């Protein structure tokens, strides 16, 4: 059962902020030349995942995320924090390392939201392929680990049509 209260929202925000402090170690600031790239990636991911979370719930493969949780998770965590992280590590870490970092952080955030909001509660992953809540949270975290690879590929394609993007 979900419990979204103001205190818990602040708690989750605080958790994001703590992670952001760690993320900033990889990148102190977004260079002016990268701002456009940052906005494109952040917006694309946030909007896409926000919608996808709901559609996947309707399809029965995801538990329901109340819109507050969904918004915070997609726009603040994925859009802002993860994009910042991506720009910070894409030039210094190998692709497998990037994916590993993203997968681990995704897992941590999901468990934190589960603890505070009571969300991410499902007892199987993807049409009962794997059972247990651990499989559910772990499975989606594993998919989230594909963020760096997907972003790399899509950004390269988009850069052919959109000027001003810094892609690797």
């Amino acid at each position, binding site marked *: 059962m979900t419990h979204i209260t103001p205190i818990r929202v602040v708690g989750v925000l605080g958790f994001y902020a703590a992670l952001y402090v760690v993320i900033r170690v990889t990148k102190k600031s977004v260079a002016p*030349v990268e701002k*456009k790239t940052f906005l494109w990636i952040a917006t694309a991911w946030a909007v896409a995942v926000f919608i996808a979370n709901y559609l996947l719930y309707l399809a029965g493969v995801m538990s329901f995320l109340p819109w507050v949780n969904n918004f915070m998770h997609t726009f603040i965590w994925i859009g802002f924090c993860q994009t910042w992280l991506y720009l910070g590590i894409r*030039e210094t870490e190998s692709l497998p390392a990037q994916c590993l970092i993203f997968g681990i952080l995704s897992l941590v955030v999901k468990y934190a939201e589960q603890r505070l909001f009571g969300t991410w509660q499902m007892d199987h992953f993807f049409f009962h392929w794997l059972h247990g809540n651990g499989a559910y949270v772990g499975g989606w975290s594993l998919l989230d680990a594909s963020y760096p690879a997907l972003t790399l590929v899509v950004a390269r394609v988009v*850069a*052919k049509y959109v000027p*001003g*993007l*810094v*892609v*690797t």
Partner: protein
Amino acid sequence: MSSVGHESCGQVSTPSAAIELLETAAERRFRTLLRVLASGLVLAGLAYWLGPLVGPFRTLYRELPFVSNSVTKVTVLGICCLYVSGNVRDRMGLAAIVIAAHLVSVGAMLVALAFGKTNGTMSFGSLGVASVRTVLWGAVGLDGAITLVVVAFFILARRSQPAAAALPSTPAPELLVSEKRMRAFALFAAVVFALSGVGYELGGLLDSTRGLFQQWPFVTNSVVMSATFGMLWLYVARDIRRHLPLGGVAAGGLVLSVVVGLSYLTFLNTDFTRPFAGNQLDMTDVLWGMVVLHAVCALVFFVSYNATWKARFQLNFFRPVQYRALLAAAGVVIDGPAVVPPEEVAQSVERYAVKMTASRTWLYRMAMLGLQAHPVLYLKPPFSELSPRLRYEHIRTHFQKVKPTHNWLLNLPAVTIRMAQQLCFAAYYNDKRTWKAIGYVPFSERPDYDPARRATGPHPLTVERPDDVAEDVIETEICIIGTGAGGSILACQLAERGHHVLMLERGRYVEPRSFSEDEVEMISDLYGDGVMQQTEDFRFTVLQGSCVGGSTTVNNAVCFDPPAGVMARWNDPVIHDAGLDLDELSKSTGAVRRFLSVTTQHQGLNPSGQLYVDGAARLGLSPSLIQVAPVDANIRDCLGCGYCNIGCAYGAKLSMLETALPWVQKNFPDRVRIISECEVQRIRAVSGSPARATDLRATLSNGRRITVKADKFIVSAGTVASSYLLMQSGLGRGLPVGKHVSFNMGAPITAEFAEPLDAYAGLQISHYGLPRALNGFAFEVWWNPPVSQAENMPGWFGEHFNNMLRYKNMMGVGVIVGTAGNASIYKSPLGGPGVRYVPEQRDLATLSRGLTMLGEILFEAGAQRIMLNTWDLRGAQFTEKSQLDRIDAVVMKPAWMSLGTGHPQGGNALSRDPRRGVVGADFRVHGYENLYVCDASVFPSSLSVNPQLTTMTLAHYAAPRISA
């Protein structure tokens, strides 16, 4: 001294007396027996280990701690047998331990039969049940039989050994503190294990404890394990310096015990108890206790063990296990009456390795580790534990005799051996004590040495080293990556046009006054990673300098005008469509020649050059068919020191370091800033039509990262690095970046003459030969100081040693062939660039023609013997002209040839067509507004002659286009 392969090709040298340690037949048989025994014991160890986990006999293996001890016992004994088999004569003491262990086993079982309760049963699964007595008697029989056979072979081997020569007694060297500590630990361990062995035996005999020690066969195995460890540690303590490696075997056994115990704890149900001294012992606790105890012992040992080796050999680079492999290799690859003992060779390698600036020096460590471990794959002890003879055989089998291939994985064993060889040669021949024997005199001791010409004062060039760089973000007008031939000329031209230029150089700034005669030191300082660069299959060396001045600081300064035929092909719209203005290019060539004072060399020539000239003339080849002459070079008043490739300390070689860079800073102060030890990681660009490079990220050698923003970026980092940088940055996608790379592939002939030539005392490359018809190859007379020549000298073992003894009677002439553009640069999984190249048959055929013609010239000049550079001299040395028709057969097996280049070209080809080239006629990368490439990587095809003048010409030509 072993015989030299002066006889006809096909003969391989035999090891010298230094290596030869003839085994007697009895020792050979003993060795074979021990290897068979080792196989059996290791298999038995595996069976013990897996027994409780899988298979039909799981019920037999109930008492897991003792089963684990059984695994350790048989495996350690098996490894001891392997160690003895590697060097029977020196390891008879260890053989005695193996025999003693079997005697202890028989004894322990007899005691158990006599005094212990052996009326229990042991279940063999579906095979039924057997009494403990029956099993024990069976084991007594087996161990007894093994003991008798081993003793018999031992005695026969011992009797067959020649009596050891009475050596004058010398006082044993004083042990170091760490060695004394290690010896104390060994003695302590010996006592503890001896007592634990007794404890295991008593445990099964006493009523209060026998509840735990139920399965006698495994209990007696535990007795033997402890006894073996005890004897091993005692043996180690007896002569800590000689026997310390065996401590590794004992500790390895402890580690194995830990691994086995953990596997049982993980996969088996250990929730049961056994009575012991009135209590119930939980089996899980017992196993954990054993695992922890053995782990702590192993850890304490390894820390002490490593500290002992490090203290003894002053190790800072190699780990002890790697160093031992190196030391063992040094005793074999230098096969002759060496004036520098192997211990000192290995020590020198360690000293040099610490100072190396290359980032891939970890490859040396991995190679030594690989060399050490490789024999184990063939059921032999590690490389350093083999006798000198067996080490020699191992190298011959896995290097000399191995079928050459372009498969990198199959080449790995040969590569490890090759690296060991190269390291040993570098250390040995860099030692002054070897020079007298080979007839080499360093320049500072020659009559024509002029100390007044030596650079002594500070060089008139301002270069910032990492600690001098204050900013994290640098803004400039034009940033040039690389300070070599292309980058430096560009800097001069652009500064002259009023631009402000920042030059970033990955390598070090070494002032000419610091250039020394120490080859190894200078190679480390001036080449960096460029000295270790090889193709993917390790068969082709791509040598490049990495220092301020780039390859011009370390090249031979040979200058050839851009060949007209090649330029025409570059400009051909069908072939490359480079779009060059050839008239303007010609003017640039003239300007660069004047700027660098390029002249035909007549001073300080290689003394052997005239032999080549005379040979070609007498054969009637020159001047009608081959243009033979001294080279044109950017060298003035050469003293003939012969150190072109390790930096000219006399101001004669007019490299970029000596000319262009000081000139531009003097004439245009504050316009050119140079930062050394700064490696550019990536250039960033924003997308668009065209895209625009915005900044680059670089790392200084002190770890700091800087950002450089510029209006224009010019990549001039050399063929390999330029392509790699573009790939790493994700730039030029869709363009053939890193493709169509070519080389001036080089293969020398080494020729021996009756009279001394002293070819080292002169310009390293002094004469050339260029066929007047387009034959596709060129000749260059060439020789090296001792270390470089040793790395290139044909032959192995005694052949190599004896060839080096004839150093002063030898000369070299290289054939260089401009290859097809079938090589490529890629991002190596090991980090950094990789080079993929297999010579095409057509290029090899050209090489073969060139080598054959050259062979004729050298025989005509009076050579007694000529040798090709192959991995093995078999079939590659010739004593008569009539034998030269066999050259083709050798050359057409490219994996057999030792090929290399100092002239990589291409990868970012010039072409107006983005499908065929990376940069256009203005040297701008297609699709980018402000990103340029200008170095040898823009060559659409190989020049077939030395490329530096063409590189500089293109830079001079490109400058106004870039400036616009």
